[in-house]
């Protein structure tokens, strides 16, 4: 992937060429995460109160961001860290490359970080003759494969273990069986050497605490700890929107983050890093550099409706529930951030010209709004951006293929005509009987196979009136 941000994102064109393996893999991941999330949320008595508190807190911080940023800079500096400011991606890349040259790093180890994806840091490292190694297992795999992430939490979910084994055989020259445990062990051994050899570790941060100048880094694999503990130099690249006022605020946000992302109560490792190490004996980096990235965020702040976009804590839950994302996967969104949050974040960051198709990549069903742990009004912002696009930029009209338009018209006619609907309810089970098994249809003839290539279709279970009559039988109706 190149380092520059895309000039125009053709969501419509991308989404028509999604290989069927992507939605299948993505839906396995999203289904898993949603299931465990639901279990965690059900355990919490005060989930809704937590969401409201988190939303209030994030909005308060954004509305007074200048003051919290000043406090953060003072505290990081007081703790012995160095703060750099970057107005755009190019300035951020220049800061990081300058630090890397200063410490003579030939290789760097990286934790998965949205901010470094945003500025195209890996590309900049390669151009400068420095080799970057992604250390999150999924990121490591897609870096070897040379592709982008398909999901924010499990970036390589679209690859089968056989493909990963073949990739390891080709790129690492080792005998790799198609077994997740064995493949993980191979990656562990390969990356251990990288961790121990690298002079510099690069991370993002999930939160920055203004009160004490503390970086908070959350991972499950332990690569976040490795990158911020083992190399002598630690560089964090973080968006200015990640600031929180104090540690008390973290009690709310950390309780929501892992539960919403993966359905864990807390992620395996949460590091709280305040400045470089105080003594040689305790370990940890000798130098800590924090690059604070604006890159369009202050422009988002100026729009009071769209400002709430920056409340995001990057849990990925809105992706998991999104019917559009689940069928096109992450690539179609054209930049490092996908799903509903990508559909509102990218057009604001790249301009509504480059990202003008994205606010239309939604059915406005609002499932994302219901689950968002910081209550971002995503559908409201989507409509707001559509309005902005309509007032300013030329809008590419959302167009459906002919077959879809014809099918939609037929559906409207049959659903709106009583006798036709009842006839259909009787005929459909007979027509689909040869195809249905266990309540699912796994194959349909062309052109209907566009559906079954991607996922099974639920068989018709009978009319609603009949179901309702059976369902309420023996119950007293109020």
């Amino acid at each position, binding site marked *: 992937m190149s380092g520059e941000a895309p000039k125009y994102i053709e969501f419509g064109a991308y989404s028509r060429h999604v290989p069927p393996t992507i939605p299948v893999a993505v839906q*396995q*991941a999203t289904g*898993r995460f949603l299931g465990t999330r639901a279990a965690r949320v059900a355990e919490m008595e005060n989930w809704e109160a937590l969401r409201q*508190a988190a939303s*209030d*807190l994030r909005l308060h911080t954004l*509305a007074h*961001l*200048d003051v919290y*940023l*000043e406090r953060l800079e003072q505290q990081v500096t007081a*703790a012995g860290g160095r703060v*750099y*400011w970057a*107005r755009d991606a190019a*300035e951020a890349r220049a800061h990081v490359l300058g630090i890397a040259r200063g410490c003579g790093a030939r290789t760097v180890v990286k934790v998965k970080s949205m901010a470094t994806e945003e500025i195209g840091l890996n590309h900049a490292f390669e151009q400068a003759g420095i080799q970057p190694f992604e250390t*999150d297992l*999924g990121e490591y*795999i897609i870096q070897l494969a040379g592709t982008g992430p398909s999901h924010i939490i*499990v970036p390589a*979910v679209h690859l*089968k*273990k056989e493909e990963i084994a073949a990739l390891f055989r080709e790129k690492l020259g080792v005998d790799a069986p198609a077994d*997740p*445990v064995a*493949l*993980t062990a191979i990656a*562990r051994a390969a*990356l251990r050497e990288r*961790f121990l050899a690298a002079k510099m570790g690069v991370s993002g941060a999930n939160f920055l*605490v203004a009160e004490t100048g*503390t970086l908070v880094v959350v991972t499950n694999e*332990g*690569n976040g700890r490795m990158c911020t503990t083992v190399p002598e130099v630690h560089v964090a690249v973080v968006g*200015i929107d990640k600031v929180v*006022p104090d*540690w*008390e*605020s*973290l*009690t709310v946000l950390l309780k929501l983050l892992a539960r919403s992302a*993966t359905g864990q*109560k*807390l*992620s*395996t*490792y949460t590091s*709280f*890093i305040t400045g470089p*190490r*105080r003594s*040689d*004996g*305790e*370990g*940890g980096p000798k130098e800590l550099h924090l690059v*604070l990235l604006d890159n369009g965020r*202050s*422009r988002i*702040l100026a729009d009071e409706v769209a400002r709430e976009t920056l409340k995001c804590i990057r849990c990925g839950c809105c992706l998991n529930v999104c019917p559009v994302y689940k069928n096109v996967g992450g690539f179609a969104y054209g930049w490092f951030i996908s799903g509903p949050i990508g559909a509102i974040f990218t057009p604001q960051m790249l301009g509504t010209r480059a990202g003008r198709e994205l606010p239309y990549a939604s059915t406005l069903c609002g499932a994302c709004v219901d689950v968002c742990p910081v209550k971002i009004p995503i559908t409201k912002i989507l409509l707001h951006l559509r309005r902005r696009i309509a007032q300013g930029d030329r809008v590419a009209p959302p167009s459906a293929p002919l077959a879809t338009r014809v099918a939609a018209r037929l559906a409207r006619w049959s659903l709106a005509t009583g006798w036709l609907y009842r006839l259909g309810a009787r005929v459909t089970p007979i027509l689909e009987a040869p195809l249905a098994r266990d309540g699912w249809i796994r194959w349909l003839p062309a052109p209907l196979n566009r559906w079954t290539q991607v996922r099974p279709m639920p068989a018709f279970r009978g009319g609603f009136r009949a179901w309702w009559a059976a369902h309420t039988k023996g119950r007293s109706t109020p």
Partner: protein
Amino acid sequence: MSAKGGAVIDSVRRALRREAGAPVPARPEILPARAAAEAEAEVEVDLLLKEVTALAGVAQRVSQAEVGASLRRLVEQEDVRRATCWNTPRLRALDIEGQLRACGVEMVPPRADKHALAQCDLGVTEADFALPETGTLGLLSSPEKPRGVSLLPRVHLALVSRSALRADLHQVFTEAKAHPYLILISGPSRTSDIELTVTLGVHGPRALHLWVLDDRR
């Protein structure tokens, strides 16, 4: 402050239409902390053991008298040949180092360099905090308590005193925020990155053992 910092903060201020030095109202209230089951401390210990076990850790109560025998079992189970241990008063009093040596384990000093620590099979620490609700350990760092000991060896053993139990993150953060480093650990290192199969021990320890020390006579 650097000129560029001024530029970013200035554009934030312009976007928010705020004056420099304009007052900031108090931040919104945070929800109160969870209350511990105060009547019976053992209920909290039970919860801690249950949650750590659910995270694929190995958790148990160990009395002072049993520490030696438990270490011997651990050395056999996990095939420990080389180990390192924090240098805290409590761990010295329990003579963890001497007991491991007696099992034939080679001891590496905790302040050894990263390569030496990475060669260790076992790292022994003492938790500064434990959160029963989430099965979480909190570890601070100092020259006697290096960060690498709970990270680089293949197996992590954390000893927990009852006095380390805290009801909620609130208490942990109040005590920890003055320190340069805090790590919260909930179970062994894990990933689901290949076909969503849960696999332990990607970069951090593959196994986490947690012993709640029984101080009662």
